[in-house]
């Protein structure tokens, strides 16, 4: 209590000696850059591996590449946007939503109106999707001013059905029964006409969105969101306007989801109303449960597992072929069902035994192994 400052305002930085953890952090910096470089290198090289089906000239079998392809990776990147934005909303802001697929639909509609109907450039229609998503997010968040908990969840579900209805009316009125077809996306003269180009277009968007979510949580209003999630009373008595902040979080999250929806629509070239089912919304919830609620990494990991694991399982089932006995035979015969069964069970087991999802479990493990490591 001897080192207390006498001024009421914060002390200038140089007068303040860094505390022990802060110093440790500074020492860890070079290692951190190394890690980032390695990660970047992997992310840049990965699509070429999947495209050429080889690493450094060594041809790899499909199963060695875990039965994963580039199209899948691109769709996974788009799903990462969905999962991360839902995790921002649900895990970080504490607003459970089963209407996340609706924002994908909103993005696809915004892109259809601007890109397909008005013929505006691709990037413009992505911006339109962001704006439409934010606006729709505010609308979807309005019930949070009146109801909470389960009732709020149900309002998002109601919203889902209403948006899907609007989408199908729009599709049938303005487009073909088979769906809305989007023009070839291009950035200036550069057309996104191959899976590789798409990957390198999507990757920075996804990384930036993840970083944006992450940074926002480390600053004033983002942190306030976490506070609201953890204890609404204490948060509001710290001067946080809970209602407005929730709407902002909703707009932020759904803008990203809507962007993802527009990207998905362009990527698939044609989308129809059936794509935006309640199952899609549920799959995003499953992703954040699997990955881990309340962290950006959880959203990323969850989307990876949800989109890639089925093909890995299917791939191994294919390898199993006629080799195995009774159980293997069921697996091969009912492959899609067994994959679903494994997925449902995975979610249930994680919920019961590892409520923090894979990321939470990994954190616990590292804590056990290296008790001194960061929390």
């Amino acid at each position, binding site marked *: 209590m001897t080192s207390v400052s006498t001024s009421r305002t914060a002390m200038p930085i140089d007068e303040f000696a860094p505390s022990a953890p802060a110093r440790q952090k500074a020492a860890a910096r070079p290692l951190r850059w190394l890690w980032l470089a390695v990660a970047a290198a992997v992310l840049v090289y990965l699509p070429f591996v999947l495209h050429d089906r080889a690493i450094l000239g060594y041809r790899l079998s499909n199963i060695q590449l875990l039965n994963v392809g580039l199209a899948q990776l691109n769709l996974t990147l788009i799903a990462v946007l969905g999962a991360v934005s839902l995790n921002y909303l*649900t895990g970080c802001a504490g607003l459970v939503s089963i209407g996340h697929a609706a924002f994908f639909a909103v993005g696809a509609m915004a892109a259809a109106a601007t890109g397909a109907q008005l013929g505006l450039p691709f990037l413009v229609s992505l911006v339109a999707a962001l704006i439409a998503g934010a606006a729709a997010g505010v609308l979807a968040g309005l019930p949070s001013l009146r*109801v909470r908990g389960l009732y709020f969840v149900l309002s998002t579900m109601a919203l889902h059905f209403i948006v899907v209805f609007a989408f199908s009316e729009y599709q049938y009125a303005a487009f073909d029964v088979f769906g809305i077809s989007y023009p070839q996306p291009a950035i200036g003269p550069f057309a996104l006409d191959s899976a590789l180009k798409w990957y390198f277009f999507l990757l920075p968007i996804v990384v930036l969105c993840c970083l944006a979510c992450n940074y926002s949580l480390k600053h004033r209003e983002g942190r306030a969101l976490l506070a609201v999630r953890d204890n609404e009373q204490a948060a509001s008595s710290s001067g946080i306007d809970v209602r407005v902040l929730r709407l902002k979080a909703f707009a932020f999250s759904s803008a990203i989801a809507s962007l993802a929806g527009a990207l998905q629509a362009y990527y698939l070239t044609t989308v129809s109303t059936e794509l935006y089912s309640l199952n899609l919304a549920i799959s995003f919830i499953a992703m954040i449960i699997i990955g881990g609620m309340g962290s950006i990494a959880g959203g990323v990991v969850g989307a990876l597992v949800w989109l890639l694991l089925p093909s890995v399982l299917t791939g191994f089932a294919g390898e199993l072929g006629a080799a195995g006995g009774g159980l293997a035979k069921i697996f091969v015969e*009912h492959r899609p*069902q067994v994959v679903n069964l494994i997925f*449902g069970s995975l979610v249930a087991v994680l919920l019961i035994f590892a409520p923090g999802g894979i990321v939470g479990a990994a954190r616990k493990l590292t804590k056990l192994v290296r008790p001194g490591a960061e929390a």
Partner: protein
Amino acid sequence: MLVQFLLTGLALGSIYGLVALGFAVIYKAERVFNFAQGILMVCGAYLAYTATTQLGLPFPVAVIVIIAAAALLGIVIQFLFIRPLSGQPLLPVIMITIALSIILKALIEILYGVQPKPLATSLPTGVLILGDVRLSQLNLTAAVVSWVCMGVFFAFFRFTKAGLLMRATADSHEAAILSGVNVNRINAGAWAIGTILAVIGGVFLGQIQLASTELEHIGLLALPAVVIGGLQSIPGAIVGGILVGVIEQLASGYISPKARDVFIYIPLLIMLLVRPWGLFGNRELGRV
């Protein structure tokens, strides 16, 4: 035409109401919003297929087998999936019921295959003609059975010790624990009842159509039903079910089948905003 729609809606709504009632019982007991209610209904259709077609049991015996199996299923589900999560926040509990529905659907498809199965129960199939109005005897039977089930259920709650205990437990978990009630057993009982009600609904829907996992989507109409009626309210679930049935008929009949969802979910949204506790629920809940 209006009378016809209303009556058919009433008959159909009775089935929804039955499923919704099962839903409300589970919710009341454990605050579990059960997204697996739809697939539990599907289980009913397949249980009926097994009992009548595969095992060839006479219908009355089949009914007993189906009900016993449903009760067992409910208890097993409560033990394996729900009990470990008791006291957890909203989302994990919702999600585990979704996981449960994925698991059950996969198991059904592995056991029975993905093709729908025709049900051959000895339920009546004829038509009842009342003036201009025609009601299928099957729908009518479904409605009557639903009402009988609801009646039995009320009697159970009002007059039996187990029912009283359940009500007491639903009102206050702590008080029940303090007075030595085995809450786990009560909750398992609620799941058994909820599953039985869903399964009975499933037998009828399976008979009206086919035993197919796609019936799940029809079963999920119990969700808006129960919310419109009031999550906490047993009569609310039934009224909500009937309302959903009638809205469905009127929307399909006068506007378009596609409009059904908006005509169910827009009132739901309005209801949530204006009167979140539903038509019959208690006020205390869910407001900011």
